[in-house]
Protein backbone atom coordinates (compact mmCIF):
# COMPACT_ATOMS: atom_id res chain seq x y z
CA UNK A 1 0.00 0.00 0.00
CA UNK A 2 1.34 3.37 -1.00
CA UNK A 3 0.04 6.62 0.22
CA UNK A 4 -0.55 8.90 -2.72
CA UNK A 5 2.43 11.14 -1.86
CA UNK A 6 4.77 8.22 -1.49
CA UNK A 7 5.12 7.20 -5.10
CA UNK A 8 8.14 8.61 -6.87
CA UNK A 9 6.02 9.41 -9.93
CA UNK A 10 3.69 11.65 -7.99
CA UNK A 11 6.62 13.38 -6.30
CA UNK A 12 8.44 13.93 -9.59
CA UNK A 13 5.30 15.18 -11.24
CA UNK A 14 4.44 17.57 -8.43
CA UNK A 15 7.97 18.94 -8.30
CA UNK A 16 7.99 19.47 -12.04
CA UNK A 17 4.65 21.26 -11.80
CA UNK A 18 5.99 23.45 -9.00
CA UNK A 19 9.11 24.36 -10.96
CA UNK A 20 6.92 25.08 -13.98
CA UNK A 21 4.79 27.47 -11.92
CA UNK A 22 7.88 29.23 -10.55
CA UNK A 23 9.32 29.64 -14.05
CA UNK A 24 5.99 31.10 -15.12
CA UNK A 25 6.13 33.68 -12.31
CA UNK A 26 9.67 34.58 -13.41
CA UNK A 27 8.53 35.16 -16.98
CA UNK A 28 5.63 37.31 -15.72
CA UNK A 29 8.09 39.25 -13.60
CA UNK A 30 10.38 39.81 -16.60
CA UNK A 31 7.38 41.09 -18.54
CA UNK A 32 6.48 43.59 -15.82
CA UNK A 33 10.11 44.62 -15.60
CA UNK A 34 10.35 45.22 -19.35
CA UNK A 35 7.40 47.57 -19.22
CA UNK A 36 8.98 49.33 -16.23
CA UNK A 37 12.26 49.64 -18.15
CA UNK A 38 10.43 51.09 -21.13
CA UNK A 39 8.68 53.61 -18.87
CA UNK A 40 11.99 54.50 -17.23
CA UNK A 41 13.51 55.20 -20.66
CA UNK A 42 10.58 57.42 -21.58
CA UNK A 43 10.50 59.28 -18.25
CA UNK A 44 14.05 59.26 -16.85
CA UNK A 45 13.09 61.89 -14.28
CA UNK A 46 10.75 59.42 -12.60
CA UNK A 47 13.59 57.02 -11.85
CA UNK A 48 14.55 57.03 -8.19
CA UNK A 49 18.07 58.37 -8.71
CA UNK A 50 18.87 58.70 -5.04
CA UNK A 51 18.30 54.97 -4.53
CA UNK A 52 20.20 54.26 -7.73
CA UNK A 53 23.30 56.09 -6.51
CA UNK A 54 23.02 54.38 -3.17
CA UNK A 55 23.06 50.94 -4.82
CA UNK A 56 25.87 52.00 -7.14
CA UNK A 57 27.92 52.80 -4.09
CA UNK A 58 27.03 49.57 -2.29
CA UNK A 59 27.36 47.23 -5.28
CA UNK A 60 30.25 49.02 -6.96
CA UNK A 61 32.61 51.03 -4.79
CA UNK A 62 32.16 48.95 -1.63
CA UNK A 63 32.82 45.74 -3.53
CA UNK A 64 35.99 46.93 -5.26
CA UNK A 65 38.63 45.77 -2.72
CA UNK A 66 37.32 42.21 -2.36
CA UNK A 67 36.80 41.94 -6.12
CA UNK A 68 40.33 43.08 -6.90
CA UNK A 69 41.81 40.79 -4.29
CA UNK A 70 39.99 37.71 -5.56
CA UNK A 71 40.77 38.46 -9.20
CA UNK A 72 44.44 39.13 -8.40
CA UNK A 73 44.69 35.80 -6.61
CA UNK A 74 42.90 34.02 -9.45
CA UNK A 75 45.55 35.47 -11.78
CA UNK A 76 48.27 34.19 -9.45
CA UNK A 77 46.70 30.73 -9.29
CA UNK A 78 46.32 30.13 -13.01
CA UNK A 79 49.61 31.92 -13.66
CA UNK A 80 51.42 29.64 -11.26
CA UNK A 81 49.77 26.45 -12.50
CA UNK A 82 50.47 27.40 -16.10
CA UNK A 83 54.06 28.43 -15.41
CA UNK A 84 54.86 25.03 -13.93
CA UNK A 85 53.52 23.26 -17.01
CA UNK A 86 54.92 25.72 -19.55
CA UNK A 87 58.42 25.51 -18.04
CA UNK A 88 58.51 21.80 -18.89
CA UNK A 89 58.36 22.67 -22.57
CA UNK A 90 60.33 25.89 -22.39
CA UNK A 91 57.20 27.75 -23.43
CA UNK A 92 57.32 30.38 -20.67
CA UNK A 93 56.84 33.18 -23.14
CA UNK A 94 53.22 32.14 -23.57
CA UNK A 95 52.40 32.83 -19.92
CA UNK A 96 51.30 36.48 -20.32
CA UNK A 97 48.98 35.62 -23.19
CA UNK A 98 47.53 32.62 -21.42
CA UNK A 99 46.84 34.47 -18.19
CA UNK A 100 45.62 37.61 -19.95
CA UNK A 101 43.16 35.84 -22.23
CA UNK A 102 41.81 33.50 -19.56
CA UNK A 103 41.37 36.24 -17.01
CA UNK A 104 39.83 38.82 -19.32
CA UNK A 105 37.59 36.51 -21.31
CA UNK A 106 36.41 34.11 -18.62
CA UNK A 107 37.72 34.31 -15.13
CA UNK A 108 37.22 37.94 -14.18
CA UNK A 109 33.62 38.28 -15.45
CA UNK A 110 32.57 35.03 -13.76
CA UNK A 111 34.42 35.75 -10.51
CA UNK A 112 32.98 39.25 -10.32
CA UNK A 113 29.50 37.88 -11.00
CA UNK A 114 29.84 35.24 -8.29
CA UNK A 115 31.02 37.86 -5.79
CA UNK A 116 28.14 40.14 -6.82
CA UNK A 117 25.71 37.26 -6.29
CA UNK A 118 26.91 36.91 -2.72
CA UNK A 119 27.12 40.62 -1.99
CA UNK A 120 24.29 42.14 -4.03
CA UNK A 121 21.95 39.42 -5.30
CA UNK A 122 21.30 37.94 -1.88
CA UNK A 123 20.99 41.41 -0.35
CA UNK A 124 18.36 42.37 -2.94
CA UNK A 125 16.36 39.22 -2.16
CA UNK A 126 16.62 39.81 1.59
CA UNK A 127 15.66 43.48 1.31
CA UNK A 128 12.65 42.92 -0.93
CA UNK A 129 11.70 39.76 0.98
CA UNK A 130 11.61 41.66 4.26
CA UNK A 131 9.47 44.33 2.62
CA UNK A 132 7.15 41.62 1.31
CA UNK A 133 6.74 40.06 4.74
CA UNK A 134 6.09 43.41 6.41
CA UNK A 135 3.40 44.24 3.80
CA UNK A 136 5.41 47.13 2.34
CA UNK A 137 5.11 45.61 -1.12
CA UNK A 138 1.32 45.36 -0.68
CA UNK A 139 1.29 48.98 0.44
CA UNK A 140 3.17 49.97 -2.69
CA UNK A 141 0.72 48.24 -4.96
CA UNK A 142 -2.30 49.87 -3.32
CA UNK A 143 -0.56 53.23 -3.58
CA UNK A 144 -0.27 52.72 -7.33
CA UNK A 145 3.49 52.21 -7.24
CA UNK A 146 4.65 49.23 -9.28
CA UNK A 147 7.30 47.35 -7.29
CA UNK A 148 9.21 46.79 -10.54
CA UNK A 149 9.70 50.53 -11.01
CA UNK A 150 10.22 51.48 -7.39
CA UNK A 151 12.37 48.58 -6.22
CA UNK A 152 13.94 46.90 -9.22
CA UNK A 153 14.89 49.66 -11.68
CA UNK A 154 17.36 51.46 -9.34
CA UNK A 155 19.09 48.15 -8.57
CA UNK A 156 19.16 47.19 -12.23
CA UNK A 157 20.71 50.48 -13.34
CA UNK A 158 23.26 50.32 -10.54
CA UNK A 159 24.27 46.75 -11.33
CA UNK A 160 24.42 47.15 -15.11
CA UNK A 161 26.70 50.17 -14.77
CA UNK A 162 28.85 49.02 -11.87
CA UNK A 163 29.45 45.35 -12.66
CA UNK A 164 31.29 46.08 -15.95
CA UNK A 165 33.49 48.60 -14.13
CA UNK A 166 34.28 46.07 -11.42
CA UNK A 167 35.03 43.56 -14.13
CA UNK A 168 37.53 45.86 -15.85
CA UNK A 169 39.27 46.37 -12.51
CA UNK A 170 39.13 42.60 -12.04
CA UNK A 171 40.69 42.08 -15.49
CA UNK A 172 43.57 44.33 -14.58
CA UNK A 173 44.01 42.77 -11.16
CA UNK A 174 44.07 39.29 -12.71
CA UNK A 175 46.71 40.32 -15.25
CA UNK A 176 48.77 41.77 -12.40
CA UNK A 177 48.45 38.42 -10.64
CA UNK A 178 49.92 36.68 -13.67
CA UNK A 179 52.62 39.32 -13.90
CA UNK A 180 53.63 38.64 -10.28
CA UNK A 181 54.15 34.99 -11.21
CA UNK A 182 56.08 36.01 -14.34
CA UNK A 183 58.44 38.19 -12.31
CA UNK A 184 59.01 35.98 -9.31
CA UNK A 185 58.70 32.50 -10.81
CA UNK A 186 59.98 32.97 -14.35
CA UNK A 187 62.16 36.08 -13.88
CA UNK A 188 60.48 37.72 -16.83
CA UNK A 189 61.33 41.41 -17.24
CA UNK A 190 58.43 43.80 -16.74
CA UNK A 191 58.52 45.28 -20.25
CA UNK A 192 58.58 41.86 -21.91
CA UNK A 193 55.60 40.75 -19.87
CA UNK A 194 53.78 43.95 -20.73
CA UNK A 195 54.54 43.75 -24.46
CA UNK A 196 53.48 40.10 -24.70
CA UNK A 197 50.26 40.79 -22.82
CA UNK A 198 49.38 43.67 -25.10
CA UNK A 199 50.16 41.50 -28.08
CA UNK A 200 47.83 38.72 -26.98
CA UNK A 201 44.98 40.44 -25.20
CA UNK A 202 43.01 42.28 -27.84
CA UNK A 203 40.77 45.16 -26.90
CA UNK A 204 37.75 43.23 -28.13
CA UNK A 205 38.38 40.74 -25.33
CA UNK A 206 37.76 43.60 -22.96
CA UNK A 207 34.53 44.33 -24.80
CA UNK A 208 33.58 40.67 -24.40
CA UNK A 209 34.37 40.97 -20.71
CA UNK A 210 32.21 44.07 -20.34
CA UNK A 211 29.34 42.63 -22.36
CA UNK A 212 29.34 39.43 -20.33
CA UNK A 213 29.29 41.28 -17.05
CA UNK A 214 26.32 43.35 -18.19
CA UNK A 215 24.41 40.16 -18.93
CA UNK A 216 25.45 38.77 -15.54
CA UNK A 217 24.29 41.98 -13.87
CA UNK A 218 20.88 41.57 -15.47
CA UNK A 219 20.70 37.89 -14.44
CA UNK A 220 21.71 38.55 -10.82
CA UNK A 221 19.40 41.54 -10.33
CA UNK A 222 16.34 39.96 -11.88
CA UNK A 223 16.74 36.67 -10.00
CA UNK A 224 17.43 38.41 -6.67
CA UNK A 225 14.45 40.74 -7.00
CA UNK A 226 12.16 38.00 -8.29
CA UNK A 227 12.98 35.68 -5.37
CA UNK A 228 12.46 38.61 -3.01
CA UNK A 229 9.04 39.37 -4.44
CA UNK A 230 8.10 35.67 -4.29
CA UNK A 231 8.88 35.48 -0.56
CA UNK A 232 6.13 33.72 1.40
CA UNK A 233 5.10 34.78 4.87
CA UNK A 234 7.24 34.68 8.00
CA UNK A 235 10.88 35.45 8.74
CA UNK A 236 12.04 31.97 7.65
CA UNK A 237 10.78 32.75 4.17
CA UNK A 238 13.31 35.60 3.81
CA UNK A 239 16.18 33.20 4.51
CA UNK A 240 14.79 30.78 1.94
CA UNK A 241 14.56 33.58 -0.61
CA UNK A 242 18.21 34.57 -0.18
CA UNK A 243 19.44 30.97 -0.32
CA UNK A 244 17.49 30.21 -3.45
CA UNK A 245 18.80 33.44 -4.99
CA UNK A 246 22.41 32.40 -4.52
CA UNK A 247 21.83 28.88 -5.82
CA UNK A 248 19.82 29.94 -8.86
CA UNK A 249 22.17 32.83 -9.67
CA UNK A 250 25.32 30.71 -9.65
CA UNK A 251 23.63 28.06 -11.74
CA UNK A 252 22.42 30.65 -14.23
CA UNK A 253 25.80 32.40 -14.37
CA UNK A 254 27.45 29.15 -15.42
CA UNK A 255 24.70 28.33 -17.92
CA UNK A 256 24.74 31.82 -19.43
CA UNK A 257 28.54 31.81 -19.51
CA UNK A 258 28.55 28.54 -21.45
CA UNK A 259 26.07 29.95 -23.96
CA UNK A 260 28.07 33.17 -24.31
CA UNK A 261 31.34 31.27 -24.73
CA UNK A 262 29.88 29.39 -27.70
CA UNK A 263 28.36 32.59 -29.00
CA UNK A 264 31.57 34.60 -28.92
CA UNK A 265 33.83 31.87 -30.23
CA UNK A 266 31.62 30.95 -33.17
CA UNK A 267 30.33 34.36 -34.20
CA UNK A 268 32.86 37.00 -33.22
CA UNK A 269 36.28 35.46 -32.96
CA UNK A 270 36.36 33.02 -35.85
CA UNK A 271 39.45 33.18 -37.92
Amino acid at each position, binding site marked *: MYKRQDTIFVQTGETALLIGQEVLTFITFLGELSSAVWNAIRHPSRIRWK*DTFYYMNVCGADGLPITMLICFLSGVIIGYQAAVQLQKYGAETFLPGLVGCTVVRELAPVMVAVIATGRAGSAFAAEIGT*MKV*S*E*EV*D*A*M*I*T*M*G*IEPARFLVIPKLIAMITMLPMLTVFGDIAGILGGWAVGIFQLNMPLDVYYQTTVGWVKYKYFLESIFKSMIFAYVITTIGCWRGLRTGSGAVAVGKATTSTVVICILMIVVVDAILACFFNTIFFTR
Partner: protein
Amino acid sequence: MAEYTDQSEPAIRVDSLTAGYDGRIILENVSFEIPRGQIVTILGGSGCGKSTLLKHLIGLYPPVSGDISILGRSIVRSSESERRKIMQSFGVAYQSGALFRSLTLAQNVALPMEEFTDLSPEEIQKRVNEKLSLVQLANFGEMLPSDLSGGMIKRGAFARAMALDPAILFFDEPSAGLDPLSSASLDQLILEIRRKTGATIVVVTHELDSIFTIADRAIMLSRETKGIIADGKPADLRDHSGNEFVRKFLNRGRIPAVSQGHTL
Protein backbone atom coordinates in the same frame (compact mmCIF):
# COMPACT_ATOMS: atom_id res chain seq x y z
CA MET B 1 -12.15 63.53 -4.03
CA ALA B 2 -13.76 60.73 -6.02
CA GLU B 3 -16.19 63.04 -7.80
CA TYR B 4 -16.69 60.48 -10.57
CA THR B 5 -18.64 58.12 -8.35
CA ASP B 6 -22.36 57.67 -8.15
CA GLN B 7 -23.39 58.89 -4.69
CA SER B 8 -26.25 56.38 -4.48
CA GLU B 9 -23.86 53.44 -4.61
CA PRO B 10 -22.71 51.91 -1.33
CA ALA B 11 -19.08 52.38 -0.35
CA ILE B 12 -18.35 48.68 -0.67
CA ARG B 13 -20.39 45.91 -2.20
CA VAL B 14 -19.26 42.30 -2.03
CA ASP B 15 -21.18 39.94 -4.28
CA SER B 16 -20.92 36.16 -3.70
CA LEU B 17 -17.18 36.40 -3.12
CA THR B 18 -15.24 33.15 -3.06
CA ALA B 19 -11.59 33.61 -2.20
CA GLY B 20 -8.57 31.47 -1.42
CA TYR B 21 -4.95 30.74 -2.19
CA ASP B 22 -3.59 28.12 -4.57
CA GLY B 23 -6.86 26.24 -4.78
CA ARG B 24 -7.50 26.31 -1.02
CA ILE B 25 -10.81 28.07 -0.36
CA ILE B 26 -10.83 30.42 2.66
CA LEU B 27 -14.08 32.32 2.09
CA GLU B 28 -17.06 30.96 0.23
CA ASN B 29 -19.97 32.84 -1.28
CA VAL B 30 -19.72 35.90 0.97
CA SER B 31 -21.99 38.87 0.24
CA PHE B 32 -22.49 42.15 2.07
CA GLU B 33 -22.77 45.87 1.54
CA ILE B 34 -21.24 48.70 3.52
CA PRO B 35 -23.08 52.02 3.20
CA ARG B 36 -21.12 55.26 3.10
CA GLY B 37 -20.00 56.73 6.38
CA GLN B 38 -20.33 53.54 8.40
CA ILE B 39 -17.63 52.24 10.74
CA VAL B 40 -17.56 48.47 10.38
CA THR B 41 -15.37 46.01 12.25
CA ILE B 42 -14.52 42.62 10.83
CA LEU B 43 -13.92 40.02 13.49
CA GLY B 44 -13.42 36.33 13.90
CA GLY B 45 -11.01 33.76 15.22
CA SER B 46 -7.42 33.61 14.12
CA GLY B 47 -6.96 32.35 10.59
CA CYS B 48 -10.62 32.69 9.61
CA GLY B 49 -9.80 34.93 6.68
CA LYS B 50 -10.12 38.50 7.95
CA SER B 51 -6.92 39.69 6.33
CA THR B 52 -7.78 37.64 3.27
CA LEU B 53 -11.09 39.46 2.98
CA LEU B 54 -9.39 42.82 3.46
CA LYS B 55 -6.74 42.09 0.83
CA HIS B 56 -9.42 41.12 -1.66
CA LEU B 57 -11.45 44.25 -0.90
CA ILE B 58 -8.45 46.40 -1.82
CA GLY B 59 -7.78 44.43 -4.98
CA LEU B 60 -4.45 42.86 -4.05
CA TYR B 61 -5.63 39.38 -5.00
CA PRO B 62 -8.15 38.36 -7.64
CA PRO B 63 -11.08 36.40 -6.19
CA VAL B 64 -11.80 32.84 -7.27
CA SER B 65 -15.29 34.02 -8.18
CA GLY B 66 -17.69 36.81 -7.33
CA ASP B 67 -17.36 40.55 -7.52
CA ILE B 68 -16.26 43.46 -5.34
CA SER B 69 -17.28 47.05 -6.02
CA ILE B 70 -15.73 50.08 -4.42
CA LEU B 71 -17.98 53.17 -4.70
CA GLY B 72 -19.90 51.46 -7.45
CA ARG B 73 -16.92 50.38 -9.57
CA SER B 74 -15.81 46.79 -9.80
CA ILE B 75 -12.23 46.36 -8.65
CA VAL B 76 -12.22 42.82 -10.03
CA ARG B 77 -13.22 43.44 -13.60
CA SER B 78 -11.46 46.74 -14.16
CA SER B 79 -8.46 47.49 -16.31
CA GLU B 80 -5.10 48.35 -14.78
CA SER B 81 -5.63 52.10 -15.20
CA GLU B 82 -9.18 52.00 -13.80
CA ARG B 83 -7.93 50.05 -10.82
CA ARG B 84 -5.30 52.73 -10.24
CA LYS B 85 -8.12 55.28 -10.10
CA ILE B 86 -10.18 53.19 -7.70
CA MET B 87 -7.14 52.78 -5.45
CA GLN B 88 -6.96 56.53 -5.04
CA SER B 89 -10.36 56.48 -3.38
CA PHE B 90 -9.23 54.40 -0.42
CA GLY B 91 -6.37 54.32 2.04
CA VAL B 92 -5.00 51.28 3.84
CA ALA B 93 -3.14 51.06 7.13
CA TYR B 94 -1.58 47.61 7.28
CA GLN B 95 -1.25 45.40 10.32
CA SER B 96 2.52 45.96 10.49
CA GLY B 97 2.34 49.63 9.56
CA ALA B 98 4.26 48.95 6.35
CA LEU B 99 5.91 52.37 6.27
CA PHE B 100 8.69 52.34 3.69
CA ARG B 101 11.87 51.97 5.67
CA SER B 102 14.05 53.94 3.27
CA LEU B 103 11.85 57.05 3.56
CA THR B 104 11.27 59.39 6.48
CA LEU B 105 7.82 59.57 8.03
CA ALA B 106 7.05 62.79 6.15
CA GLN B 107 8.24 61.30 2.84
CA ASN B 108 6.05 58.27 3.50
CA VAL B 109 2.99 60.46 3.92
CA ALA B 110 3.95 62.57 0.90
CA LEU B 111 4.44 59.61 -1.44
CA PRO B 112 0.77 58.96 -2.37
CA MET B 113 0.36 62.65 -3.16
CA GLU B 114 3.49 62.67 -5.31
CA GLU B 115 2.29 59.56 -7.12
CA PHE B 116 -1.34 60.44 -7.67
CA THR B 117 -1.64 64.24 -7.73
CA ASP B 118 -0.08 67.25 -9.42
CA LEU B 119 0.17 69.24 -6.19
CA SER B 120 3.16 71.53 -5.79
CA PRO B 121 5.87 70.48 -3.33
CA GLU B 122 4.84 73.29 -0.95
CA GLU B 123 1.20 72.20 -1.01
CA ILE B 124 2.25 68.58 -0.38
CA GLN B 125 4.43 69.71 2.52
CA LYS B 126 1.50 71.61 4.01
CA ARG B 127 -0.83 68.63 3.76
CA VAL B 128 1.79 66.29 5.19
CA ASN B 129 2.07 68.53 8.25
CA GLU B 130 -1.72 68.58 8.56
CA LYS B 131 -1.96 64.79 8.50
CA LEU B 132 0.93 64.35 10.90
CA SER B 133 -0.52 66.74 13.44
CA LEU B 134 -3.87 64.94 13.19
CA VAL B 135 -2.11 61.79 14.44
CA GLN B 136 0.02 63.81 16.89
CA LEU B 137 3.29 63.17 15.11
CA ALA B 138 3.90 66.73 13.92
CA ASN B 139 7.47 66.83 15.24
CA PHE B 140 8.53 63.43 13.98
CA GLY B 141 8.32 63.98 10.21
CA GLU B 142 12.07 63.78 9.70
CA MET B 143 12.51 60.48 11.50
CA LEU B 144 12.93 57.10 9.82
CA PRO B 145 10.41 54.35 10.63
CA SER B 146 13.17 52.37 12.35
CA ASP B 147 13.49 55.15 14.95
CA LEU B 148 9.76 55.23 15.80
CA SER B 149 7.93 53.16 18.39
CA GLY B 150 5.28 50.61 17.44
CA GLY B 151 2.41 52.95 18.29
CA MET B 152 3.99 55.81 16.38
CA ILE B 153 4.41 53.60 13.31
CA LYS B 154 0.72 52.66 13.52
CA ARG B 155 -0.26 56.32 13.69
CA GLY B 156 2.16 57.18 10.90
CA ALA B 157 0.48 54.49 8.79
CA PHE B 158 -2.88 56.17 9.58
CA ALA B 159 -1.49 59.48 8.35
CA ARG B 160 -0.25 57.90 5.13
CA ALA B 161 -3.56 56.10 4.58
CA MET B 162 -5.32 59.47 4.88
CA ALA B 163 -2.91 61.30 2.59
CA LEU B 164 -5.36 61.57 -0.31
CA ASP B 165 -8.41 62.22 1.91
CA PRO B 166 -9.89 58.92 0.75
CA ALA B 167 -13.58 58.11 0.93
CA ILE B 168 -12.83 54.72 2.47
CA LEU B 169 -10.22 53.73 5.04
CA PHE B 170 -9.11 50.18 5.83
CA PHE B 171 -7.30 49.39 9.06
CA ASP B 172 -5.89 45.91 9.68
CA GLU B 173 -5.59 45.27 13.43
CA PRO B 174 -4.72 48.87 14.32
CA SER B 175 -4.45 48.24 18.04
CA ALA B 176 -2.67 44.87 18.00
CA GLY B 177 0.46 45.09 20.14
CA LEU B 178 -0.37 48.47 21.66
CA ASP B 179 -0.83 49.34 25.33
CA PRO B 180 -4.43 50.03 26.44
CA LEU B 181 -3.95 53.80 26.48
CA SER B 182 -2.48 54.02 22.98
CA SER B 183 -5.14 51.68 21.74
CA ALA B 184 -7.89 53.83 23.30
CA SER B 185 -6.44 56.97 21.76
CA LEU B 186 -6.33 55.21 18.40
CA ASP B 187 -10.06 54.51 18.77
CA GLN B 188 -10.70 58.18 19.45
CA LEU B 189 -8.64 59.02 16.39
CA ILE B 190 -10.78 56.74 14.21
CA LEU B 191 -13.95 58.42 15.49
CA GLU B 192 -12.41 61.84 14.92
CA ILE B 193 -11.44 60.95 11.35
CA ARG B 194 -15.00 59.98 10.58
CA ARG B 195 -16.36 63.13 12.22
CA LYS B 196 -14.03 65.32 10.20
CA THR B 197 -14.09 63.57 6.83
CA GLY B 198 -17.22 61.42 6.83
CA ALA B 199 -15.14 58.52 5.57
CA THR B 200 -16.33 54.94 5.51
CA ILE B 201 -14.03 52.96 7.80
CA VAL B 202 -13.41 49.21 7.83
CA VAL B 203 -11.42 47.91 10.79
CA VAL B 204 -10.16 44.39 11.35
CA THR B 205 -9.71 43.97 15.09
CA HIS B 206 -9.78 41.61 18.05
CA GLU B 207 -10.08 44.34 20.68
CA LEU B 208 -13.52 44.07 22.24
CA ASP B 209 -13.22 47.50 23.87
CA SER B 210 -12.52 49.10 20.57
CA ILE B 211 -15.31 47.21 18.81
CA PHE B 212 -17.87 48.51 21.29
CA THR B 213 -16.43 52.03 21.21
CA ILE B 214 -16.14 52.65 17.50
CA ALA B 215 -18.22 50.22 15.50
CA ASP B 216 -21.66 50.91 14.08
CA ARG B 217 -21.65 47.36 12.88
CA ALA B 218 -19.68 44.15 13.27
CA ILE B 219 -19.28 41.45 10.65
CA MET B 220 -18.08 38.17 12.08
CA LEU B 221 -16.41 35.50 9.98
CA SER B 222 -16.06 31.84 10.80
CA ARG B 223 -13.47 29.34 9.65
CA GLU B 224 -15.95 26.47 9.82
CA THR B 225 -18.59 27.95 7.52
CA LYS B 226 -16.05 29.96 5.48
CA GLY B 227 -18.47 32.84 5.64
CA ILE B 228 -20.32 35.39 7.75
CA ILE B 229 -21.90 34.05 10.94
CA ALA B 230 -23.06 37.34 12.40
CA ASP B 231 -23.72 40.83 11.13
CA GLY B 232 -25.17 43.63 13.23
CA LYS B 233 -24.68 46.17 16.00
CA PRO B 234 -21.92 44.89 18.30
CA ALA B 235 -23.92 45.32 21.51
CA ASP B 236 -26.96 43.57 20.02
CA LEU B 237 -24.84 40.67 18.85
CA ARG B 238 -23.23 40.40 22.28
CA ASP B 239 -26.51 40.24 24.12
CA HIS B 240 -28.95 38.66 21.72
CA SER B 241 -27.18 36.73 18.98
CA GLY B 242 -28.74 33.35 18.28
CA ASN B 243 -25.25 31.94 17.70
CA GLU B 244 -23.59 30.82 20.91
CA PHE B 245 -20.05 31.24 19.50
CA VAL B 246 -20.78 34.86 18.63
CA ARG B 247 -22.06 35.65 22.12
CA LYS B 248 -19.11 33.86 23.66
CA PHE B 249 -16.64 35.73 21.47
CA LEU B 250 -18.12 39.13 22.32
CA ASN B 251 -18.30 38.29 26.04
CA ARG B 252 -14.65 37.28 26.30
CA GLY B 253 -15.49 33.58 26.47
CA ARG B 254 -18.06 33.88 29.28
CA ILE B 255 -21.54 32.94 28.16
CA PRO B 256 -24.15 34.88 30.05
CA ALA B 257 -27.62 33.47 30.42
CA VAL B 258 -29.39 33.79 27.10
CA SER B 259 -31.60 36.80 27.32
CA GLN B 260 -35.02 35.75 26.27
CA GLY B 261 -36.92 37.58 23.63
CA HIS B 262 -35.67 38.38 20.22
CA THR B 263 -32.63 36.81 18.65
CA LEU B 264 -30.70 38.14 15.70
